[in-house]
């Protein structure tokens, strides 16, 4: 037992370190070499396009696992060992954590006005803390309603525009089909739930008072939790992990009619289930009263503290986030449907995205319309991975009938506060 524990720890520690020991080199007279880590699909194509577009900077790309699958652990370990890549890909919720840990460097001075003008301000706000910019957003992903147009049409279901209509439809689906459900409440979907709260006007974290004010269970979040709890209690939604074989089967066997996820998921769906070509369409996320939405997913690029060439790194980041060729290269890989933070790229995106899967629907125009509805003012917290993990542990229990969703949210809050306090941050507890 003791030996195996140690082996496990050692394996967890050394594997990422061994894998990332590529030394950083300055090209002697030749091009500047910078390293870039990402789990995003199509990144290799983007890097190739950049490398062939000029000869001053050479980007060395390494595909790493996605954050939850070990990508973030790899980055943290590399940063601790002092050999993080020049550029790391960090999703929005994790940006403040890496900024506080000093892994993502303060790049306020490197982000010129020229770059800023090309990016949606509401996205840049999510990576700016204390008036300092810590990463440059690549895509902003409003949550949308992916739905089975064929099943909707065959049964005369209307696309729900509001959450009330959505709940009624969920009941109608259950009445019509004993084995089908309108949607899934993903018990591993902390980020989906955050998006629901975001849309409803929740403010889990607030830094405006110079301290971290944490109120996960605020009024809007309670409303959202009660809404989904009711659907769970009525047994009109599935309640299992979204990232699971079980859910794959639910989608593959036509047992789930809609999916609530970010715009990027359109590409993931195409890749995962080519057989359902032509059956899916995309509609706006249902709303409460105001025409606003939240985001689900999306990535940013940070320059790490270990970078020797921050200017060159910034040049590649700027190209990658704002140049049409970058987006074209990524979308041509056929596995991505990211919605760019640079509005100037939308036309290029719409052109490059292969539209047959969605029956020719102009999904980029829909994404554009939805991206403009993203509610302003959301702030992610300093230890978002852990906060969401505790919440998801509670969701899984609630899905199994023990406890409720709002209990899970409250546990997440009480499991987050000690963490922030031990980090030495100024904190304050809001509603709970």
């Amino acid at each position, binding site marked *: *037992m003791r030996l195996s*524990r140690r082996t496990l720890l050692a394996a967890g520690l050394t594997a990422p370190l061994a894998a990332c020991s590529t030394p950083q080199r300055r090209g002697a007279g030749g091009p500047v070499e910078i390293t870039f880590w990402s789990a995003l699909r199509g990144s290799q194509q983007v890097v190739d396009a950049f490398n062939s577009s000029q000869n001053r900077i050479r980007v060395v790309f390494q595909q790493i696992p996605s954050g939850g699958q070990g990508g973030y652990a790899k980055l943290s370990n590399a940063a601790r060992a002092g050999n993080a890549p020049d550029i790391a890909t960090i999703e929005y919720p994790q940006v403040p954590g890496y900024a506080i840990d000093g892994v993502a460097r303060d790049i306020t001075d490197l982000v010129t006005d020229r770059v800023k003008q090309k990016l949606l301000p509401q996205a840049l706000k999510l990576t700016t803390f204390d008036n300092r910019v810590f990463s440059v957003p690549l895509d902003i992903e409003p949550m949308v309603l992916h739905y089975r147009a064929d099943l909707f049409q065959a049964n005369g279901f209307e696309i729900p525009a509001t959450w009330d209509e959505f709940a009624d439809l969920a009941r109608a689906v259950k009445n019509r089909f004993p084995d089908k459900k309108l949607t899934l409440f993903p018990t591993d979907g902390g980020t989906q739930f955050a998006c629901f709260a975001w849309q409803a006007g929740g403010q889990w974290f607030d830094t405006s008072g110079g301290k971290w004010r944490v109120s996960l269970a605020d009024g809007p979040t309670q409303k959202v939790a009660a809404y989904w709890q009711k659907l769970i209690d009525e047994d009109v939604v599935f309640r299992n992990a979204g990232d699971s074989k079980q859910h794959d089967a639910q989608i593959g066997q036509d047992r789930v009619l809609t999916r609530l996820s970010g715009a990027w998921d359109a590409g993931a769906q195409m890749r995962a289930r080519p057989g359902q070509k032509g059956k899916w369409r995309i509609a706006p996320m249902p709303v409460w009263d105001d025409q606003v939405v939240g985001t689900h997913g999306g990535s940013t690029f940070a320059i790490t503290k270990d970078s020797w060439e921050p200017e060159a790194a910034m040049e590649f980041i700027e190209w990658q986030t704002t140049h049409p060729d970058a987006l074209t290269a990524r979308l041509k890989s056929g596995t991505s449907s990211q919605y760019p933070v640079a509005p100037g790229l939308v036309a290029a995106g719409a052109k490059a995205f292969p539209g047959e899967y969605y029956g020719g629907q102009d999904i980029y125009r829909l994404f554009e319309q939805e991206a403009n509805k993203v509610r302003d003012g959301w702030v992610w917290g300093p230890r978002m991975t852990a906060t969401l*993990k505790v919440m998801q542990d509670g969701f899984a229990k609630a899905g199994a009938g023990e406890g409720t969703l709002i209990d899970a949210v409250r546990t997440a809050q009480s499991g987050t506060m000690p963490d922030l306090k031990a980090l*030495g*941050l100024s904190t304050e507890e809001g509603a709970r």
Partner: protein
Amino acid sequence: MKSKLACAVLMAPFFLLLVTVFLIPTGTAIWLSFFAADQPGLGFGPESTVFVGLRSYVAVLSDPTFLNGLLTVVLYCLLYIPLMVVGALTLALLLDSGVAKLRSWMQMGLYLPHAVPGIIAALIWLYLYTPGLSPIIDLFAKADIQINFLGINTVLPSIVNIALWSNLGYNMVIFYAALQAVPREVLEASVVDGAGPVKQALRIKTPLVRGAIVTVGIFTLIWALQLFTEPVLLSQSTPMISARFSPSMYIYDAAFTRNNYGLAAAASVILLAFTVALSFGVTRWTNRKAA
């Protein structure tokens, strides 16, 4: 002079290991738990290492997820330790009484699981517990019995089962060795006095191997408080095991998911203190009873 040198040479490996794998890490953990790289306010400024006193300890002890983990491990001990001690002792008494045939085969069969590394054992059981993979669950299903080994109330007993399977044989061997040392004339005297085999086992043999029982009890307690491998592996198959299921898992999560080394260090020191206090308490308690 010569004997002193020999003494030093022979003791050196022990002290070297004690210092490198126990004292230095423990000292580092204690240091880490009292100092932190702090940034004031929102935390985006430059860092400076400062003495933070008991801040990390207060944070750990006010964290319901840590206290839940502690409660889980206490429950685990209450379930596991009695089962283990009674089970191993019963098997050893049976072997010693001569009731069991093929004694050495029995011994080997029972001991063999202990030779399987904990992580492999957990993998084997993970396979047997996972719905859709497990032949056992299929078998029960054929008899119309729905069983979920990884459900909210069954997951702890499932972990106890793995630990029992791994360690029962080992502890049985310790008890058996102790029973071998019981003087035969005492046993003969008890037979003459009219004690049957059951009475002999309970009233004569068991009190005479008391020392072994206490030793096994304390070792099992220390081992059980560090519960880690089995739940970590099982957590891949069930959401009922959270990332902070046991104190050891909490420490791992604090250090490697939350990058909060002060918190992890404080939790480690608390777990160490808890373990030392409990072992000390058990030793004192049993010694008093013996006196």
